[in-house]
């Protein structure tokens, strides 16, 4: 086993050495350097496209998905080796995608064979960029209160056998850049949780429109998304009609894992080390105190991943991880701002790389809101892990 893994490691190292372009081995300067793929994506460089193509072809954009669906078919141990070898040469992730981190796992569990064959391969190759239609103006933390309506139009009716979708979503990340949406809709008003369905549809469908929302960071990563008599073929329903909440919850678990990892993203490096000398003893103490929490959480993250792979993680643990990871990330950026003093407040200058530090700091404030607020996560832990009454 170990010998096979060693062989795999050597082969992987050699393949990466031969196939990962030099430009893809330097750290991303900003979020803009990430490769999101999709029909509208403009590659930053030929190297970025080449890296996506070779990795996609090998199934290594989604190394642990089955080969039949465009994945690499790697075991969890092999996947770990691949990640380690990529990290060792500083290789960028070839593809950042909600399809990989959110929709894919849900389709693997709830999708039918035709859906898996079609959509998973597109995700793996970075052909289709997905966005998530969950929150609504009246359904934030109380997500199951969503009102976007999907009425079934039967085959007997004119142009039938589809759903007619009407309503509005909000906080749809990159809706204006996405090709398709996975969307929660209400197919029944009989029951709150039991009247929700999970639909997939093309953002170019007639009746879909988006409007970016300007945030405090000065960026607009989120949109309002409107549906006006959008026709969605019935074979684009995932799972069973009115049972979409199960799919939604499963997907949210993966989203929380992803967000909880973002805070530290496998970083085992102390914040204080990245800031260089810290003259102010009180700030140094605050940063050291943060590093204790952050490095301890890195150990927890490592353990959580091992527990997930072994099937030993409590189903509500992603909520705990998401809560802690996002709160730590906010604290990390607060401290980085403090360390930067007045210079960290520059907004447009070249010196500040267009105000990167301040904009990143403001962006983190959304971490503990998106994907379920910190308060929602604590409620889930209280109910499902601690089993406190009435939670």
């Amino acid at each position: 086993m170990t010998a096979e893994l060693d062989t795999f490691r050597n082969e992987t190292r050699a393949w990466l050495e031969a196939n990962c372009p030099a430009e893809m081995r330097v750290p991303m300067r900003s979020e803009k350097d990430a490769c999101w793929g999709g029909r509208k994506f403009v590659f930053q460089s030929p190297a970025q496209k080449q890296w996506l193509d070779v990795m996609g072809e090998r199934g290594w954009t989604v190394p642990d998905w089955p080969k039949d669906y465009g994945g690499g078919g790697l075991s969890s141990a092999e996947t770990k080796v691949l990640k380690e070898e990529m990290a060792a040469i500083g290789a960028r992730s070839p593809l950042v995608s909600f399809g990989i981190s959110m929709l894919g796992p849900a389709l693997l569990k709830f999708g039918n064979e035709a859906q898996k064959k079609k959509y998973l391969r597109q995700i793996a190759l970075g052909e289709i960029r997905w966005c998530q239609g969950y929150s609504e103006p009246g359904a934030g933390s109380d997500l199951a209160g969503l009102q976007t309506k999907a009425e079934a139009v039967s085959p007997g009716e004119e142009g039938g056998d589809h759903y007619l979708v009407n309503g509005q979503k909000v906080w749809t990340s990159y809706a204006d850049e996405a090709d398709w949406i996975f969307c929660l809709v209400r197919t029944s008003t009989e029951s709150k949780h039991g009247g929700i369905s999970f639909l997939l549809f093309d953002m170019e469908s007639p009746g879909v429109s988006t409007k970016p929302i300007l945030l405090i960071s000065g960026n607009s990563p989120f949109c309002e998304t409107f549906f006006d008599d959008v026709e969605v073929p019935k074979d684009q329903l995932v799972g069973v009609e009115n049972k979409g909440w199960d799919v939604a919850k499963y997907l949210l678990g993966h989203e929380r894992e992803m967000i909880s990892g973002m805070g530290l993203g496998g970083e085992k490096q102390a914040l204080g080390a990245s800031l260089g000398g810290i003259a102010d003893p009180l700030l140094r103490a605050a940063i050291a105190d943060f590093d204790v929490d952050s490095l301890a959480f890195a150990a927890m993250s490592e353990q959580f991943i091992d527990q997930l792979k072994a099937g030993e993680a409590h189903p509500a643990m992603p909520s705990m991880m998401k809560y802690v990871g996002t709160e730590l990330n906010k604290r990390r950026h607060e401290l980085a701002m403090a360390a930067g003093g007045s210079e960290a407040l520059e907004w447009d200058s070249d010196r500040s790389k267009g105000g990167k530090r301040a904009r990143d700091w403001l962006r983190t404030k959304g971490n503990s809101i998106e994907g379920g607020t910190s308060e929602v996560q604590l409620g889930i832990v209280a109910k499902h892990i601690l089993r406190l009454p009435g939670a």
Partner: protein
Amino acid sequence: MMILTDDQRMLQDTVRPFMAGEGAIKAQLRHWRDIGCKDGFGHGLWKQLGELGLTGMLIPESAGGAGLGQVEANLVLEEIGRNLTPSPFLATSVVAVRALQDSPHAGRWFPGIAAGETVVALAVDEGKAHDPAATALEAKRQGNGFLLNGQKQFVIQGGSADLLLIAARTAGAAGETTGVTLFAVPRDAAGIEVENVALADSSKAARLTLSNVAVDADAVIGEVDDGWVRLSRALGAGRAGAASELVGIAAGASEMTFDYLKQRKQFGRLIGEFQALQHRAAYLYGEIEIARAAALKAAQLIDLGDPRAELMTAVAKAKAGKAARLAVQEGVQMHGGIGMTDEHDIGLYMKRQAVLDELFGGPRFHAGEVARLSGY
């Protein structure tokens, strides 16, 4: 892999019910406290731990021990923490064994430790704050041996120890890590005055005054002037172990508290229904899980001889201290008035946490270590 092996789970499955039964608060901590025991722990239990093979678990098999590692010792310590079981396990089976191993003294003392008959204590602190590099207790060459003069405090189980392991300065100045030497000195050696001090948690820690204590050259453990690495190894094991004991304290206190939230009624409903308490409980739960993961990671790195062990041990001791402090404070607060009574056990957790938090350096000391080891 940060998942316990089958063998480690078996050990846990053996130790958990044992400590919850034989090592329970009423059977041990309260019993010895209430009868005014001078040692603060029961020698009967120490002997039983020996029979279970626990007191010598870190001793190599070739020397009559179980040859296990820090991860296994930490599993035992978590159960000790959960039940506030008083015993010399941390001081003797973990710290002293790591200090003595690979030295001629091991052959003399390991059999007694493995049998649960011998108690060994490490004497390192000299002031109210943990600062091993500041060791100033003087060991001056005299004839074929040394003459020891100075004082030590916060020597856990020092009053009941058969053997004292004393960090002394043979060269250099206080603050320097070179010039520190470890000595193995029987507690009844002439010139050692022992003041047995009861601490807040009713455990015992000694203050030692050494006046012209003459020892032979072979009392030195390891090399003269070069005891720092050995002392650090022992302290590292002690800190990682204390981290797990603190996790056990946090787990015991929080489980007691979460149960109380499900029983206590006010305003006509269970207080656990109040979101103000639910969120604090959930936050506390997370902090304890993180502390446990950090302690496991530190123990694994120690067992691997990984150079990152020192950093992770500092992280673990600090994090476990913080998590356990939160657990006992929330524990007493959420219990309300009953939490302030001696009759209820939750307050015992608070007192034990405070002592263990201070032992081998508290969260601030170790946050400082994290900064130092990370280069800032």
